[in-house]
């Protein structure tokens, strides 16, 4: 009877049963290859090969994970001199550039109707070589503009240019740090960004430099910072006009009036001179030129409270190894040069050159040009001086201020040839597009830091008919001279490497993926006269941008905008605002109240003739009168260039804000900016809040067999950089669902960064993932055992058993379970990224973090082969592996020797919502950013 009544319902179902019966993508054939695959390669096993990330100029070392020949994940190369195992969100996502569905596949020529048509390489080469000759005869200049280029490629370009009579222009980087370089040039005769040894400092003062997210070499800095923070005596202060991820993570953050950083530094320099141990003196003339401020005056000018200034001065004076780093927005306004110079002088006076500030290991921004150079170029183009214009790995049309009219002027070149992989604004303006191979498809090397050479090695043949820049140049040279390509770029490189490192060295290089050359230290001395000249009116009035001001900042997710195209990066929310898709304008709470603006309301920002409409996001911790937008959200902003440094000023002064009256649909993923005193992150000042260790269970504990997998996350180290999130997405085939579903609150991320703001605008980041509870509420309510607890303490979700009641998700206090609302698809060839060790979940199935059970399985498999247990550190999760700060530790809680065991038993270890008695396996290490016994920030 009861069966029949439910069968009555079946009438509808039977149809769909047949529909959904055919789902499996398992290949119905298996292949006998012609030859046995290369030695030692076993199907079903993962292999790692060294390479280098080219998503930004930092040049982090990669270890590329391959399965059956296809790269399926990028990981930071352990031991690499730059990133030592860590890899940022952009680096992780670089894989989606390789498999991007919209990559340029063949050379494309603009036909007379302005449309692009595919052409053969031969055609392209002959065309270029003809017009090279042609324009030379016509007295036009052939020009070569590229993004920052280091290593062999740079030398090849030189060779190419000299051989073909092409003028190589200064490289164009949006963030070329020219103010800092310029200042160092003036003061020390080293026009470059030095290497900062943060790890060795005991006091760090960063002024405007967004070292954790976008400044020069973020992962490298982050690593060093973690090292420094592990020392009790280390303190880190950050001064900036706006709020950046870096500021959010400093021990204490000072909000400086835009453009007044110089006053702060001048005050500090004076204090150091007066009180500090003056390891190396400042020439008298400079001392005299240095303006003198009382604490009160300085505080009044900078907007930093007198107490804080005083304390900062004390610490600066008493620190053994203080390090001051100026950069970013603080050196990109009219007073930027002075700010940089003052920082340099403090470095000099405190005698930390060359110990902490090493010019021998420059970050190699010397050769990089400035906006001034681009202004010049634009002018030359407008005069029609240019014959063939090569534009390689650079997007000036998008990046340059509207005033430069670069878009229009490019058209004046006789033939503009753009190299690139995804069609960007500049390529669209070009006459000829030459598609570049992804770095995973090509040979090469980079030298991101002087003496540090990192290998770029292909892991697969180009997916399309693309070439590496090196091959293009060589073949062009061949085409011009008519004798065809001399050698491939690969052979060229091998020759180069053998020349540089010797035979043995070369093999070691291609094995390890990097070389660190021994370099002689560079002694620099401070040029007093020039210093004095700089100091004269360093703090003069009227330099600072007038408020209200719109600060344009580099973006954690897209850097200068070059990573915009990568789908994964828009799916992962910005850690400060939790906005995933679209643009927004960050407004301070006070200003918002005054203007009557609320989240998602549209505001019209205008300055001079320029104006643009942004949805508003209220940003706690932002100073009054300061508005922030990511650089790549703004279309051709009216930026000025600083005459002396050539740096663009990233401040739009005296802007006007108006309500447009409309409300925009932007996905703000966080339901509440504050944690409402719910103790997700207990306030370090009163420990007891952390409170009772769970409830007593009514039932006896169940025992664990062999392993109990657990995780410890150090909130004092986590800086919200979201690299772990990207790693998780790629490792676990987590679908990218897009804006529409984000607006509905249907994001699929297994791991998310939850920012929680305090009253003072300080923010803590909480990485939230499945807590693998020992008494999991989700398990009990599942009617079919799809969610259950396995003997190793994992909260397992059996996808194929799940019927999709969503009860588990309802009953999860951490809301980390994700339901597949649709049949998610990956646009080809993105599906190549799929990790074959996991099923791709179909519609109607609940999924969630598994502690990377596939990695655990593999590790146990290895261990079983030589009949032993899995060693501590042998298996780690994707998030832990990628974390640049090393905040995440994974291991076996049953092993008292394991690192995770030690951390889980620290005094500051706690578990979220312990009062609910869920007994999570994820331990968070509370405490202020500065580490255990340090003051909170704010």
């Amino acid at each position, binding site marked *: *009877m*009861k069966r029949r*009544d*439910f069968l*009555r*319902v079946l009438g*509808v*179902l039977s*149809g*769909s049963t047949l*529909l*959904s019966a055919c789902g499996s993508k398992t290949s119905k054939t298996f292949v006998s290859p012609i030859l046995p695959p290369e030695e030692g390669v076993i199907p079903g096993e993962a292999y790692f090969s060294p390479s280098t990330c080219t998503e930004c100029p930092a040049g982090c070392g990669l270890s590329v994970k391959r399965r059956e020949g296809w790269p399926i994940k990028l990981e930071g190369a352990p031991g690499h001199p730059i990133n030592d195992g860590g890899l940022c969100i952009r680096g992780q996502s670089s894989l989606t550039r390789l498999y991007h569905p919209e990559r340029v596949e063949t050379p494309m020529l603009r036909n007379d109707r302005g449309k692009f048509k595919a052409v053969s390489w031969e055609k392209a080469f002959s065309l270029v070589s003809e017009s090279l000759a042609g324009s030379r005869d016509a007295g036009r200049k052939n020009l070569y503009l590229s993004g920052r280029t280091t290593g062999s490629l740079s030398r090849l370009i030189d060779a190419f240019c000299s051989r073909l009579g092409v003028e190589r222009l200064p490289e164009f980087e949006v963030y070329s740090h020219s103010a800092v370089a310029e200042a160092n040039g003036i003061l020390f005769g080293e026009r470059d960004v030095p290497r900062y040894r943060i790890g060795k400092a005991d006091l760090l003062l960063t002024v405007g430099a967004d070292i954790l997210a976008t400044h020069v070499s973020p992962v490298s800095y982050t690593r060093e910072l973690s090292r420094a923070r592990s020392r009790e005596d280390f303190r880190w202060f950050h001064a900036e006009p706006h709020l950046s991820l870096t500021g959010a993570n400093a021990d204490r953050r000072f909000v400086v009036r835009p453009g007044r950083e110089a006053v702060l530094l001048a005050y500090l320099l004076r204090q150091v001179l007066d009180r500090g141990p003056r390891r190396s003196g400042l020439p008298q003339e400079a001392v005299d030129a240095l303006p003198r401020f009382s604490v009160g005056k300085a505080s009044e000018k900078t907007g930093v409270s007198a107490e804080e200034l005083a304390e900062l001065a004390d610490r600066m004076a008493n620190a053994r190894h203080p390090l001051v780093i100026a950069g970013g927005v603080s050196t990109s306004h009219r007073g930027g040069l002075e700010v940089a110079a003052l920082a340099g002088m403090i470095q000099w006076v405190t005698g930390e050159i060359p110990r902490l500030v090493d010019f021998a290991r420059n970050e190699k921004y010397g050769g990089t040009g400035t906006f001034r150079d681009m202004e010049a170029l634009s002018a030359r183009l407008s005069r029609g001086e240019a014959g063939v214009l090569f534009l390689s790995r650079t997007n000036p049309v998008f990046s340059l201020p509207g005033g430069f009219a670069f878009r229009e002027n490019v058209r004046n070149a006789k033939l503009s040839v753009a190299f690139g992989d995804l069609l960007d604004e500049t390529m669209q303006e070009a006459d000829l597009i030459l598609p570049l191979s992804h770095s995973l498809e090509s040979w090469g090397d980079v030298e991101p830091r002087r003496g540090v050479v990192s290998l770029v090695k292909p892991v697969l043949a180009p997916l399309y008919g693309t070439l590496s820049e090196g091959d293009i140049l060589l073949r062009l040279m061949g085409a011009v001279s008519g004798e065809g390509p001399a050698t491939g770029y690969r052979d060229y490189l091998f020759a180069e490497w053998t020349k540089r490192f010797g035979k043995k060295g070369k093999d070691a290089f291609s094995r390890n993926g990097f070389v660190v050359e021994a370099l002689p230290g560079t002694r620099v001395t401070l040029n007093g006269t020039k210093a004095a000249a700089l100091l004269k009116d360093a703090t003069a009035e009227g330099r600072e941008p007038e408020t209200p001001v719109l600060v344009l900042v580099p973006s954690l997710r897209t850097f200068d905008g070059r990573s915009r195209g990568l789908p994964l990066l828009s799916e992962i929310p910005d850690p400060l605002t*939790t906005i995933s898709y679209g643009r927004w304008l960050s407004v301070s709470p006070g200003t918002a109240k005054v203007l009557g603006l609320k989240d998602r309301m549209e505001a019209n920002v205008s300055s001079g003739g320029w104006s643009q409409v942004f949805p508003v996001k209220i940003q706690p911790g932002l100073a009054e009168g300061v508005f922030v937008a990511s650089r790549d959200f703004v279309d051709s902003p009216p930026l000025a260039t600083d005459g002396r440094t050539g740096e663009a000023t990233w401040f739009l002064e005296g802007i006007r804000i108006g309500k447009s009256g409309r409300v925009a649909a932007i996905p703000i993923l*966080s*339901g*509440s900016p*504050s*944690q*409402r*005193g*719910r103790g*997700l992150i207990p306030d370090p000042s009163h420990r007891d809040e952390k409170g009772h260790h769970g409830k007593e269970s009514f039932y006896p504990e169940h025992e664990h067999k062999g392993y109990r997998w657990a995780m410890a996350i150090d909130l004092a180290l986590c800086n919200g950089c979201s690299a772990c999130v990207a790693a998780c997405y790629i490792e676990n085939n987590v679908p990218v669902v897009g804006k529409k579903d984000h607006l*509905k*609150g*249907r*994001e699929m991320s297994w791991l*998310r960064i*939850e920012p*929680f703001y305090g009253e003072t605008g300080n923010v803590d980041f*909480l990485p*939230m993932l499945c807590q693998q509870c020992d008494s999991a*509420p989700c398990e*009990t*309510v*599942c*009617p*079919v*055992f799809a969610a259950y607890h396995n003997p190793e303490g994992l909260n397992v979700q059996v996808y194929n058993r*799940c*019927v*999709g*009641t*969503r*009860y588990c*998700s*309802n*009953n999860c*206090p*951490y*809301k980390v379970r*994700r*339901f*597949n*609302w*649709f*049949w998610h698809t990956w646009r080809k060839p993105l599906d190549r990224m799929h990790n074959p060790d996991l099923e791709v979940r179909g*519609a*109607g*199935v*609940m999924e969630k973090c598994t502690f990377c059970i596939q990695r655990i399985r593999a590790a146990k498999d290895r261990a079983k082969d030589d009949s032993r247990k899995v060693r501590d550190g042998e298996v780690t999760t994707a998030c832990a592996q990628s974390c640049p700060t090393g905040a995440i530790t994974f291991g076996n809680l049953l092993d008292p020797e394991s690192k995770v065991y030690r951390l889980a038993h620290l005094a500051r270890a706690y578990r979220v919502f312990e009062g609910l008695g869920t007994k999570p396996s994820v331990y968070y290490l509370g405490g202020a950013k500065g580490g255990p016994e340090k003051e909170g920030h704010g």
Partner: protein
Amino acid sequence: MDKPDKLARVEQDVLSAMKRPGLAYLAALGCTAALFLGLLGFWGYQMKTGMGVSGLMHPVGWGVYITNFVFWVGIAHSGTLISAVLYLFRARFRTSFNRPAEAMTVFALLVAGLFPLIHLGRTWKFYYLFPYPTQRMLWVNFRSPLIWDVFAVSTYLTVSVVFFYVGLIPDFAIVRRYKEGLAKRIYGFLSLGWTGTRRQWKNYNQLYLFLAAFATPLVASVHSVVSWDFAMSIIPGWHTTIFAPYFVAGAIFSGTAMVITLVVPMRKILVLDRYITDDHFESIAKILLFTSLIVTYSYIVEFGLAFYSGNPFEMEEFRYRALGDYTVMFWIMIFCNSLAPLTLFVRSLRRNVKYLFVLSLLVNVGMWVERFVIIVSSLARDFDPYAWGTYTPSIVEVGITLGSFGLFFTAYLLFLKTLPVLSITEIKEHL
């Protein structure tokens, strides 16, 4: 007129409902059936495309579908109350309501039974929910309240159907007498060949008594189990000890309202005033009033507990429930379930059938909204503030909800034309 004619008269009065359907009837049937077909359409679309076509999201994983489930199971309850419990209490007025009430129970349960399936992400795997021996050697998780539901609801449905059918047996025999040819055979078959012999009557009497006895605890148990779907979770606003009695009262409240909604027009159209009198309605109205008071009391207790507990999660939840995104729903609920029924303290209103009808509609709305508020507002504001979100139903969910009413009324209309709408035998007995 003398007795035997009276008996005949009863038969004719009741059976007159079963004569050829008129145009109005067919039109009504057409509409309801169309709604039901709509449900099937939407459901198919949802299964093909995925649950995403509903408004559900994180953190609100349950919405209109589960609301409907609870609502319809609730409706079922008063049927059993009237037919079984009142039978045990020998409440005379029951006689005029029990047949439509039992019918309502059965149909409501059929509709309710659909929704657990509709809300499944993978409906085509619904059989995983049943404990039957498979080659997988896997069983179900008896610790899950959803499995309790499977057992409670299917038991309830089975017992109700049996009870309903048993009550019909002697009446089938009567209908048989009025029919010819095939119809006669069919009703004869349904009557199991009832002739009203002494043996039959003796055992029948005891059967009916015991079925009533078995059905009675179900009134309490089934909706308790349903309430545990929520009470057994840890969600603030769900995890409450008062849920079981609170839900049972609510169930009877809504069910009684539905009985009125159904019987008032039925009495009018089929001219059954002689058998369903205003006194009967007054007694029903009293039940309505009584349960309304219990429900109101539960509302107060809920808030009391929340704020007395000092538990921040609970407090925020109930603040949100009353003043948050769903505040309108909340106050609709208060008006329909707590305030409006208070008017029943006035005797004249209790006896005013039109008024009762309107009120019953209000209560139906109110109780649906109550379930919605409890389910959605609790999920929307649980522990982790980052994960908070608000849910709005989609067109698909609305369509399916309407469809469920379509199915219910289709069944009810068919019942009017095929079965004796009142228990003839019992009325005779009590003449």
